[in-house]
């Protein structure tokens, strides 16, 4: 099995990569960790005529503390780097905890944050988690740069707002609000496989212990990572009671997600999973938020 021939560039700087993308545009594909792109090239599902390999660009691999208390992740940061980073554990505990669910050790050695987000697989963790956390992405081209919120970034299956000459260079994950908690719940046939259904919950309580903020984001639930906004709205101002959580799970799983049937699971089963997992995610997230409230 061989990929079709392509012209290969491995520029050492972001500037040179942007120049190559400006020149080759639609004909070029960006190679980050390659853990999704190379299988697709091996099957010849994708046959780019130009490959711009970012692996020599050291300046794109970093984890930095943001001034607002959040985390800045360079596009070429490997999953393994995030998995083993105390800074990531402190600043973005949900993302840190999710790393061990992303594929296998050999894939996490190579796979990158920016690559996973740009690939926009609706079954992948990082797009959905970025959405749950209110993350945003810095896109750069020779024409300039722009920040795009996760809500705006994902368009449909494997499709984002990235223009052919643009590169995602950084992800910015905001800090967790005070008195907040999080949870990621998934069902997969085997650990580390793509999940049949997954949900990330991020919640915050106010001084009285009522839900102040809530975000629910789903993977394997549609053609892109999906946020359940009406379910989140139903939680706000409410006490985190079992009834309130059940109601939110009902709204999200029956009205807001759009799962499809395939060889692995029916749409109906995926909705069922979403309902159960949403309830579990909210229980755990509110539990963590209550613990943070006592500490704070």
């Amino acid at each position: 099995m061989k990929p079709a021939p392509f012209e290969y560039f491995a520029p050492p700087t972001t500037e040179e990569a942007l120049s190559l993308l400006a020149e080759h545009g639609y004909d070029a594909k960006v190679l980050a960790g390659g853990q999704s792109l190379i299988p697709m090239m091996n099957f010849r599902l994708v046959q780019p005529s130009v490959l711009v390999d970012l692996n020599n660009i050291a300046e794109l691999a970093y984890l930095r503390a943001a001034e607002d208390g959040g985390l800045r992740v360079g596009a070429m940061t490997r999953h393994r780097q995030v998995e083993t980073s105390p800074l990531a554990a402190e600043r973005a505990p949900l993302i840190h905890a999710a790393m061990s669910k992303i594929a296998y050790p050999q894939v996490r050695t190579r796979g990158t944050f920016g690559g996973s987000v740009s690939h926009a697989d609706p079954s992948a963790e990082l797009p959905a988690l970025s959405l749950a956390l209110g993350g945003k992405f810095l896109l750069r081209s020779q024409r300039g740069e722009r920040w795009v919120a996760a809500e705006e970034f994902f368009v449909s299956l494997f499709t984002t707002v990235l223009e052919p000459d643009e590169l995602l260079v950084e992800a910015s994950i905001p800090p967790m609000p005070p008195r907040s908690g999080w949870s990621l719940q998934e069902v997969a046939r085997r650990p580390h496989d793509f999940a049949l259904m997954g949900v990330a919950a991020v919640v915050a309580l106010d001084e009285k212990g009522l839900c102040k903020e809530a975000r629910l984001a789903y993977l394997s639930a549609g053609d892109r990572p999906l946020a359940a906004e009406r379910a989140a709205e139903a939680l706000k101002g409410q006490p985190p009671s079992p009834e309130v959580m059940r109601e939110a799970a009902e709204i999200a799983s029956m009205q807001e997600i759009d799962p499809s049937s395939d060889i692995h699971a029916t749409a109906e089963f995926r909705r069922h999973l979403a309902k159960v997992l949403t309830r579990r995610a909210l229980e755990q997230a509110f539990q963590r938020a209550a613990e943070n409230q006592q500490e704070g």
Partner: protein
Amino acid sequence: MQTFELTVTVNGTRYQRSVEPRTLLSDFLRHDLGLTGTHVGCEHGVCGACSVLMDGQPIRSCLTFAVQAHGHEIITVEGLGTRESLHPIQQAFQEAHGLQCGFCTPGILTTVKAFLEQNPRPSEEEIREALSGNLCRCTGYQHIIEAVQLAAEKMRG
């Protein structure tokens, strides 16, 4: 046809070869260097048979282009031990019957090498996690887990 002058260290030996950019590292190791110990199973990153170490970390050589190994250090199963003097991990797999047909074994041995260097006293759970990306269709994994436990003991000395 574009070719690339590749310099790579494999099992401590420096090689210089001309390669097409589309050549996968797995094919480069087997066809260009004749190191057929690295096995090729699924060629899309699922089976783990082609796992090798790049700068000490386990990777899938079928999901890496040979050109991307330029300037890096690769360890394949041939770099572990010799027929006369097996690596402690290979010794343990032999003693604990950690293989049957052996097809998946090279990828498991290289993955286990990096794992035990980072985690010399792993739990059974951690061993199963570490090998989650390596498929074996013969053993049911039980003897593989036992072999890794034995290997850990041997390597601790």
